[in-house]
C-alpha cells in the first residue's frame, strides 16, 4: 500500500504476466523467457531496494492505446516499456521527460549504448529513454535441410553474398530438399515486408527520410529491392500464405530452410534444437540478414524504458535513477531472451558470448539502423509500407504503384502533422 513509507514507482510493461511461476522469484539467473526474466528482475530490484517499491502494471502488447489514454487522462506511469520507433511520437509532443538527468545520477553515459540503441533513443540531441535491447530480423536456419541442399561449409550454413546468389542457392535448396527456401509470414504481418524493404534500401545507402515530413520509397533502389522480393515469390522460392503462427510452426517442423523473423524467437527455436526427437534437433543456426548488396546494415528496433512527464518527488526521481542503474547492470540477463544488448559492454561479456548463437548474431548490434529519430509515427509508417510492399511482393499490385502509394500515404500522414 502507498502508506508503507516506501517510495512507490509505477511501472508499466508488456511481456505478459507470469506471477504464477515467477511471483516471488528473485534469482534472475534461473528465470526463463521475457516474462520470467523481467518479473525476476523487478522482484530482485524490490528486494535490493527496501526503501523503494515498484508497482507493476502489466498491459496487453503493445500497450500504446492505454499509455495514450493514461496521458490523456493525466495519469501516466513512471516507467514504461516502449519500442524505440514510438518514442518520437510521444517525445515530439513533449509527453516524455528527457532522461539525461537520470542517466547522470545513475552514472550511465550515452556512449555506453550500442550505436543502434543510441541512435534510437536520441531525438534532436536529447535522450528520451534508457535503451534496453536491440531487436531486428534474423535468418533462422534449419541446418539439416541446408546440409541436404549442399549448403553447409565447415559446419556453417552458406549464406548468399548477393541477390543473384540468394536466388541461385534458393533454387538449389528447393531442388534438393523439395521444400521452400524461405518461410515467410506474409499474412497479417506488415512488419515482415517493411523490414525487408527498409533493410535492403538502407544497404544501398538510400535516404529513406530526407526530412521529418517525407519518405522516399519510389526510387530505383526501392524498385529493385521490391523486384527482388517479388521474384522470390514469382519463383515460389518462399512460402506464400502463412501468417506468423503458421510460419513459426512450419519452421519448427522443418518445413523450410530459412525463417526470417525477429530475435525474440531465438529462445524458442534453440529450445527445439536442444530437444531430442524434434525436427529441429541439432539443426539450428541463426544469423543477421545477409548483405545482398551495398553495405551491411539492417533495419532494427529495440525496447526501451521511457519516463512520461508528470510531477514526481525527488525520492521518486532518485528511485527511477536507481532503477536505470539496476537495469543497466542486468542488461546481460535480458539478452538470454535472444535480444541483443543495449550496452556495448555486454557484447564483449564472456557470459554473453558463450550463449548459443550469440557470436553469430552480435554484429546486429553494430550494423543495426533504426529509422531517424525525427521521424514520427514510425509504427504507422511501418504498417503502411509493410502493407504496400507485401502487395508488391506478392504481385497484388504493380511495384511502381505500390511504391508510389506507400510514399503518398506516408507523406500525407507526415504532412498532416504540425
Amino acid at each position, binding site marked *: 500500500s502507498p502508506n508503507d513509507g516506501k517510495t512507490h514507482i509505477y511501472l*508499466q510493461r508488456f511481456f*505478459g504476466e507470469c506471477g504464477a511461476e515467477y511471483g516471488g522469484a528473485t534469482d534472475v539467473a534461473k528465470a526463463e523467457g521475457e516474462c520470467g526474466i523481467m518479473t525476476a528482475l523487478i522482484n530482485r530490484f524490490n528486494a535490493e531496494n527496501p526503501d523503494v517499491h515498484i508497482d*507493476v502494471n502489466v*498491459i496487453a502488447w503493445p500497450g500504446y492505446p492505454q499509455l495514450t489514454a*493514461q496521458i490523456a487522462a*493525466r495519469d501516466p506511469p513512471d516507467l514504461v516499456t516502449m519500442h524505440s520507433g514510438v518514442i518520437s511520437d510521444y517525445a515530439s509532443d513533449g509527453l516524455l521527460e528527457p532522461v539525461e538527468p537520470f542517466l547522470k545520477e545513475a552514472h550511465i553515459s550515452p556512449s555506453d549504448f550500442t550505436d543502434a540503441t543510441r541512435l534510437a533513443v536520441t531525438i534532436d540531441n536529447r535522450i528520451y529513454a534508457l535503451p534496453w535491447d536491440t531487436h531486428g530480423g534474423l535468418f533462422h536456419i534449419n541446418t539439416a535441410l541446408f546440409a541436404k541442399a549442399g549448403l553447409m561449409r565447415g559446419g556453417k550454413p552458406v549464406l548468399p553474398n548477393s541477390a543473384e546468389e540468394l536466388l541461385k542457392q534458393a533454387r538449389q535448396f528447393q531442388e534438393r530438399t523439395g521444400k521452400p527456401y524461405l518461410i515467410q509470414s506474409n499474412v497479417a504481418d506488415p512488419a515482415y515486408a517493411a523490414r525487408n524493404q527498409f533493410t535492403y534500401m538502407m544497404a544501398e545507402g538510400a535516404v529513406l527520410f530526407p526530412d521529418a515530413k517525407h519518405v522516399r520509397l519510389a526510387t530505383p533502389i526501392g524498385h529493385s529491392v521490391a523486384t527482388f522480393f517479388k521474384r522470390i515469390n514469382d519463383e515460389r522460392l518462399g512460402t506464400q500464405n502463412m501468417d506468423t503462427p503458421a510460419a513459426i510452426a512450419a519452421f*519448427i517442423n522443418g518445413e523450410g530452410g530459412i525463417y526470417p523473423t525477429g530475435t525474440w524467437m531465438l529462445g524458442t527455436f534453440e529450445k527445439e534444437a536442444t530437444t531430442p526427437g524434434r525436427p529441429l534437433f541439432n539443426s539450428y543456426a541463426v544469423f543477421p540478414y545477409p548483405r545482398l548488396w551495398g553495405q551491411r546494415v539492417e533495419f532494427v528496433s529495440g525496447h526501451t524504458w521511457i519516463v512520461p512527464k508528470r510531477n514526481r518527488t525527488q525520492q521518486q526521481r532518485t528511485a527511477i535513477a536507481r532503477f536505470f542503474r539496476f537495469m543497466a547492470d542486468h542488461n546481460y540477463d535480458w539478452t538470454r531472451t535472444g535480444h541483443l544488448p543495449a550496452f556495448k559492454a555486454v557484447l564483449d561479456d564472456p557470459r554473453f558470448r558463450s550463449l548459443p548463437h550469440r557470436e553469430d548474431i552480435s554484429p546486429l548490434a553494430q550494423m543495426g539502423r533504426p529509422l531517424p529519430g525525427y521521424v514520427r509515427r514510425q509504427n504507422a509508417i511501418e504498417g503502411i509500407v509493410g502493407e504496400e510492399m507485401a502487395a508488391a511482393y506478392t504481385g497484388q499490385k504493380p511495384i511502381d504503384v505500390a511504391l508510389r502509394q506507400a510514399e503518398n500515404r506516408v507523406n500525407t500522414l507526415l504532412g498532416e502533422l504540425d
Partner: protein
Amino acid sequence: MAAQVDRARLTRAGYVALTIGAILMVSPLLWALLLSLKSNASLVGNSGAAFHPPYTLENYAAIFGNSSTMRWLLNSIIVSLCTTAGVLILASLAGYGFARLEFPFRRTLFVFVLVGLAIPSQAVILPQHQLFAWLHLHNSYPGLVLPGLVAPFGVFFMTTYMRAIPKELDEAAMLDGASRWKIFRSVILPLTIPAQSTLAVFTFLGSWNDYWWPLISATRSNMYTLTVGLAASQMNYAQTSGLGFLMAQAVFASVPIFIVYIVFQKQIVRAMAGAAVR
C-alpha cells in the same frame, strides 16, 4: 400423415445438414477445449498435438495461480452485473415511458434513441475517454460501467415488449389507485421478466466480452477486467507459444456466460416471442 403439419418434419437430408452444421459449430469449440488441456510446449509448432494425450490442467493452474486472475474475474463480474442491472433499469424505465406514457416529443425522442443503434462504438471512444478523464472516472467501476449503460437496443426491445402487454392491466392498476411508478414496478416489471432475462443475457455477454473500453479506461492492473487482464498476461504477441494457455483463458472466460445462457434459454425464446416480432 397427420397432425404436426406445422413443424415440418425434418427430412433425412435436413437431419444430415443439421448434424453437419452442429459438428461444424461445435468442433472448433471442442478443439479449443482440447488445446486448453495441452501444455504450451507440446503445442509449439504442432497444434495437432491437441488430439493426443497427455492432457494436463497446467494451463488452468496457471490461470488460477496468477494472483490477479481472481481480482480480474471479480472486476468482470462486478462490471458486467452492474452494467446489466443498469441497462435493465434504464431500458425498462424508458421502455415503459415510450410504450405507455404520453409526453411531449415522445416519437421524436424515440427516433432519437434509435439513432443510437447506428453509432459505432469505436467512433466515440476517444471523445468518451476525454469525457471520463474530465470527470476523473477512469480506473473506477463507474468508469467501466457507465458507457455500457447506453443501450439503445435495450430501450427498443423493452418498448416493443411492453407495448405487447394488455393496456387494461395498467388501467386496472390505475383504478386500484396505483401511481405510475407503482404500476411500473408492481404490474409491468414482473410481467417483463422473460424480456429482462433476454436483455440481461445479451447485455452481460456484451459487457463481459468488451475489450476496447476497459483497455483504455482501466489502465491499472487492479481495475482490469478479465478480458483485458488475460490479454495482458499474453507473453507473446504472436500468440503462438502460449496457445494452450490462451485457450484455457478463452474457456475460462466463456464458461460463466455459457452458464448464464443455459439457465435463461427458455426465458429468452419466450421473451423474443413477446417483443421483437410484433
